């Protein structure tokens, strides 16, 4: 549970961690979780996102508005950089389980091993799990 030095540095500068672990489109969890992250950033908080489980699917390239104009969550993803949310952590095992590589993702991420993820969960930072 001792984070690597670069991760420790990231953690030291954060105000909020939002964990996303549901798939996009089918339900509202990712969207409402990202809304929290974006509002926090707009209020000047330094936010990191941890994508775990099905949450990694919200980073897939090539997503579109759904039929009937359902917006999806990729437009919010595209706003993260503008809001200075650049700390994006992705569970390596979640990617592997789905046969995905970092190249399949729309944003640059840090792939985390399980020790990294544990360090994040125990950084004593305000954390919301969606």
């Amino acid at each position, binding site marked *: 549970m001792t984070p690597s030095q670069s991760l420790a540095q990231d953690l030291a500068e954060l105000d909020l961690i939002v964990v996303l672990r549901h798939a996009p489109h089918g339900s509202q969890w990712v969207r409402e979780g990202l809304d929290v992250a974006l509002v926090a950033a707009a209020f000047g908080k330094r936010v990191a996102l941890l994508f775990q489980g099905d949450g990694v699917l919200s980073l897939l390239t090539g997503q579109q508005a759904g039929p009937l*104009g359902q917006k999806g969550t990729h437009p919010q993803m595209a706003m993260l950089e503008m809001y200075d949310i650049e700390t994006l952590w992705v569970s390596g095992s979640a990617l592997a389980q789905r046969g995905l590589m970092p190249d399949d993702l729309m944003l640059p991420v840090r792939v985390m091993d399980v020790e990294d993820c544990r360090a994040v969960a125990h950084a004593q930072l305000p954390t919301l799990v969606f």
Partner: protein
Amino acid sequence: MALTYALLVQGAPYTHQAALSALRFGRAVVERGHRLKTVFFYHDGVHNASALMTPPQDEVHLAEGWRSLHRGQGTELLVCVAAGLRRGLLDEGEASRHGQIASNVAPPFELTGLGQLLDAMEHHDRMLTFSP
């Protein structure tokens, strides 16, 4: 051969995709030349009937989508009264019966009992369920 369809919708709009899937399927049924006779809203699906839903203007308005199926096809839009009452969905009659100050279900949505769901299953050729 044209078939008659009933849909059972159990998912709330703006929480789960089920309601959108049901509406799209309903439209496709009509485009294929079938009759969409009944949509029955149960479980969290009752929220599809809320007259107060106020989605962002650039997003689909689910209740309006259902109403347009009613206008085009005469599709019955039936809302389970028991599932609706506990979830805060009432028409004028139920509101006055229960001493509530307002109502949020209006025609063409109709509050009704589960008997109407069974009727629809019995009399229509196909029944599809869309759940969260």
